[in-house]
């Protein structure tokens, strides 16, 4: 399945809030919420890595970070 929805940090934040609201209103069960939380955590780790990477590049001139996407 191909999704055309753009994924960025703000979309991820909205998804996290929506999941929380659905869980509070019992619209999703505990297992589903757990799975969503796990996915959110993994996605957020990538965002964290991006931020740390940007900070490191700004801070040190001669740092060589491996390009994981290559």
């Amino acid at each position: 399945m191909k999704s055309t929805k753009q994924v960025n940090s703000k979309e991820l934040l909205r998804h996290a809030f929506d999941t929380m609201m659905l869980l509070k209103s019992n619209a999703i069960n505990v297992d589903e919420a757990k799975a969503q939380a796990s996915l959110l955590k993994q996605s957020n780790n990538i965002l964290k890595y991006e931020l740390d990477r940007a900070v490191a590049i700004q801070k040190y001139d001669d740092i060589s970070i491996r390009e994981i996407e290559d």
Partner: protein
Amino acid sequence: MKHFTLEGHASHCVCEAERLKGIIDSGDYKNADDWLKGMYQSAYLDHCRSTEIIFYHDADFYIVTYNKCRDYLTKYETYENWLKQIIGSTKKSYFSVRRGNANNDLKELRLSGIKLKNTIDEVNYTYSNAVGKQYAISTKVRYMDAIVDQDRLDDNYLKALAYVKGRPNEKYFTYVINTLYSLNSFYVDESEIVKSIDEITKLINKKTRQNEKHKTSQQ
């Protein structure tokens, strides 16, 4: 940037009166001239010219071209009605619409557990009365949607500025676009978003554990 053109004139408009004169002349109405005189008087100040206004909705700017006679006497009510037809529901208020600081709101949620607002006012149109008191036509939108739409708003803002460049009312349009942009935009730090997602994930996990505990205690 989307551009709409509304055709047609109001019933009291000079153009419309002339059209009606043609109809009445062909019919058997008596005293039609007196009636038309009144019509012309009511339309005397109306120049029946084409004019343009700018609205904001859903992170985009809309130019509406219409004949001036359509907003005769009820200018802002007319605008509000158009917006109601496009958006669904609007409210007209004294200008008290203020943007919250999204960074602070998220930080308060993360550190103190203060709940986020559910909705926020989207300013669709602003105007001021004769003494300069400002009013706004606004709509309630979800707070999270407003945060997510910021990137789209930035893109559309630049497109709108490029669109109005070189138009007859360029200066006024630029001012309106800048005003609407500043009222509808707020900055959120990327690091704050990441920290907030982390916190919400923890809250979801906490809530699931509570639910499981509650379930087992009931059994």
